[in-house]
């Protein structure tokens, strides 16, 4: 049967999609509107040749097989309206046990206040039932929560339903009519905002703001964050929007945890001298005033150093990854003070980073809260760091002088020297994107780096191997780079397609097999018996396999195999 639902855009577990039903197209996430629509859907649960609808009746059941339907109804979802734990489990379980190209409908649960979180967790369809119930309980709903209508002394809302209404003059029926119209409108408005945020990839920022308005919603977000693999499997590897880390929950964002994991697990082990920098407001760090001053002062000494930046909330950013999301674009409230949670998290990241590598010496050019982080990590590991900042001023001439003197002193005749600092970016990105040792497989001794920051490219004897492409600053492989990677990689980041020559876009229906580790916007290799191609994934690998609809890979180059 032809699928009636197609996902067109993803932002973590949230999706924009199109549901074809009753002769029209509904852009999701969306709310059903009329009773006829609800009746139509209800009737379709029995049998409907046009729309395939399934109901999950037992939210606690474990399912071995995925439910495959156009619309999957999470039956009885309203029971979780005050139960964040139950809701988290039910939503994650429902999403994980249905096909990715099924729309998930949570009936009688949505309010303007909670709908952004529902969508964030993976809900595609809601209805105005709870908004209507609240209207009859006397509540005026908004994205900020609910107010008892009678308790509102003056004009609170300027919507068409509320304008000019005097609470005291209304009969109970009129009051319900006003509240019902207002509440439905508020739900629709919030859904517009939600859709717009998914479009921009910033739903998480909206959700962190909305969850502040109710303990239940904050609990829900925190519990959802404990479902790390559920969200990580759906989170794009990069995005253009700036990550705003304004709350405690920001520390647990899937992309922040993933970045931390990959820095430890995927990058080459380093030795020699590590130099630690504080972060800067301007990104990438090396373009900031403070980093430019320090780096200029170090000059040629840099080739003896590995550089890493200490930052909240990302943790540790090796210099080569400073152009990679989220290190490349995030913003935090700067007060000069770190919260306990922030410090603890960054201390943990630094400790792990030092443990995972084998540096002989660590020079920390830091002050203030960064210094405290370094102290704690050093104490945890029982090592000594060399601090080079005097008078708490990282740009002071005494500090810079001391930094250079310390590094100079550490260098001995046979200290390992890096031939090209630009190579750091290519190497770190290759490992970060394609897994441990990818850089070793892709690049050779004689590989040359050219180009302007940050769009460097690598070539071997005139053949281009890989390029850092703009917009997202990911490392894209050429066909030659892909061939080299394939020799070592055993199908990682590979999408196997049916026997056709891909042009432009590969659709999910044409995918035979895909590495489940692929994430949206990953650079991938597309293969069949005849051709090899490179491109950018538009959905996760596991989703390419399970979906019947939607664009899977945007192809960049194709060549005969």
């Amino acid at each position: 049967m032809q699928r009636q639902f197609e996902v067109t855009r993803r932002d973590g577990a949230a999706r924009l999609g199109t549901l074809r039903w009753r002769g029209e197209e509904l852009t999701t996430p969306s709310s059903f509107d009329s009773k006829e629509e609800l009746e139509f859907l209800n009737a379709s649960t029995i049998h409907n040749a046009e729309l395939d609808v399934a109901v999950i009746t037992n939210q606690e059941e474990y399912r071995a097989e995925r439910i495959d339907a156009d619309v999957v109804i999470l039956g009885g979802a309203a029971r979780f309206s005050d139960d964040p734990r139950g809701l988290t489990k039910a939503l994650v379980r429902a999403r994980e046990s249905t096909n990715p190209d099924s729309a998930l409908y949570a009936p009688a649960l949505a309010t303007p206040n909670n709908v952004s979180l529902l969508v964030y967790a993976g809900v595609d369809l809601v209805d105005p039932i709870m908004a209507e119930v609240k209207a009859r309980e006397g509540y005026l709903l908004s994205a900020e929560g609910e107010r008892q209508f009678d308790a509102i002394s003056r004009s609170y809302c300027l919507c068409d339903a509320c304008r000019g209404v005097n609470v005291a003059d209304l009969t109970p029926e009129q009051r319900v009519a006003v509240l019902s119209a207002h509440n439905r409108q508020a739900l629709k408005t919030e859904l517009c905002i939600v859709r717009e945020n998914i479009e921009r990839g910033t739903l998480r920022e909206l959700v962190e703001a909305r969850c502040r308005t109710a303990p239940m919603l904050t609990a829900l977000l925190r519990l959802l964050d404990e479902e790390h693999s559920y969200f990580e499997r759906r989170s794009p590897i990069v995005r253009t929007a700036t990550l705003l880390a304004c709350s405690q929950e920001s520390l647990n964002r899937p992309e922040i945890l993933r970045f931390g994991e990959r820095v430890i697990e995927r990058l080459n082990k380093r030795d020699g001298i590590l130099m630690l920098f504080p972060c800067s407001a301007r990104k990438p760090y090396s373009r900031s005033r403070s980093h430019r001053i320090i780096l200029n002062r170090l000059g040629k000494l840099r080739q003896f150093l590995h550089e890493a930046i200490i930052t909240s909330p990302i943790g540790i950013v090796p210099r080569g990854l400073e152009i990679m999301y989220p290190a490349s674009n995030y913003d935090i409230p700067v007060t000069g003070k770190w919260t306990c949670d922030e410090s603890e998290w960054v201390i943990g990241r630094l400790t792990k980073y030092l443990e995972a590598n084998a540096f002989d010496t660590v020079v920390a050019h830091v002050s203030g809260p960064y210094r405290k982080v370094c102290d704690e990590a050093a104490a945890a590991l029982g090592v000594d760091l060399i601090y080079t900042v005097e008078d708490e001023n990282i740009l002071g001439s005494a500090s810079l002088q001391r930094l250079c003197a310390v590094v100079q002193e550490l260098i001995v005749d046979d200290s390992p020297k890096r031939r090209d600092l630009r190579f750091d970016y290519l190497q770190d990105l290759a490992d970060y994107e394609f897994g441990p040792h990818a850089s070793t497989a892709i690049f050779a001794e004689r590989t040359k780096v050219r180009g302007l920051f940050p769009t460097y490219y690598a070539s071997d004897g005139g053949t281009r191997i890989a390029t850092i492409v703009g917009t997202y600053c990911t490392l894209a492989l050429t066909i030659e780079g892909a061939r080299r990677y394939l020799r070592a990689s055993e199908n990682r980041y590979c999408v196997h397609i049916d026997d056709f020559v891909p042009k432009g876009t590969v659709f999910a229906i044409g995918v035979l097999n895909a590495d489940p580790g692929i994430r949206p916007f990953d650079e991938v290799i597309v293969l069949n018996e005849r051709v090899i191609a490179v491109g950018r994934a538009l959905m996760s690998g596991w989703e390419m396999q399970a979906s019947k609809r939607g664009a899977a890979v945007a192809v960049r180059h194709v060549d005969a195999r």
Partner: protein
Amino acid sequence: MRTGRTSRRRYPRQAASETSGHRTHDRFAWTGLDLLNGEIVPSLTILLTTKGCSWARRDGCTMCGYIADSNPDAQSSDIQKQLFEVLARYGTGFKIAKLFTSGSFLDQEEVPIDARDAMLSALADTPKVIVESRPEFVTSEILDDVVRSNRHLEVAIGLETSNDDIRNSCINKGFTFRDFVRASKVAHSKGLTVKAYLLLKPPFLTELEALEDAIQSTHEAAPHADTISLNLCNVQKGTLVEALWKKRLYRPPWLWTAVEVLKRVKQMATIICDPVGGGTARGPHNCGKCDRQVVSEIKEFSLSQDSTSFTAACTDQLLWKYVLEFEKFSYGAPLVP
């Protein structure tokens, strides 16, 4: 299952206020007012602890937790003693006696023959004695024995609904409408009267389905029953209904639903209703503001059979109407706790 009377441990305080008899009340017996041939008369309700309902011991109904009040070791003499102690305390001024066990009074396993006959003989002069039984014990044989001790017997049967699918799938009652009709015929043929208990809102039904089922059941049960007792489902400990309620998959009926049923079926039969636990989370309830008044109006109606008793109005009726119309679209959860 027996409703239409108060559970011993569940609602002791409610029981006191519910029985308009007001005078005396303890856990096992209380006095009240009831309808007898169109007249309001004093009644005495006695709860007898037996070894428990035969069906509950074997399988059990989804909403009934009375088995928890039974005593597996209850002997014939214990049961008799309970009655005679109560009679000694309350005297014989009442016109109706209700002898309620945790199951079927006519089941010889539960109430041994000697106890049964002794108790019924003691109440031989009471104008009406009501006992409860599952239909399988309402047989020609047993009734012939029983009428020898007491000719003013009314047999109350927990029909719950006339719909066999609902009775078996949602309530797990284990008998059919035909069983009830047969039992009713036998009772009538022996000159006894029959009361049918109907359950308002078994689990797994929406509020509207429950409302329609109660009305339909009244239509179908009325020809076979002298009185219909509409029992509003409440959440008893240790039952499936309680498990569903705790998961927010069940809500006891709205009092408005009961009022609606009583208004719509009153011409068909004498229909009484005692909203046990009315106004509490575990019992039938409305918004909380109007509950007390609606409960007392329902009780008033039970005595007067006059639907002008119902005068209460509350803004939550708009919510209740919305629930009736839209609850099915939640696919399993009540819209309002």
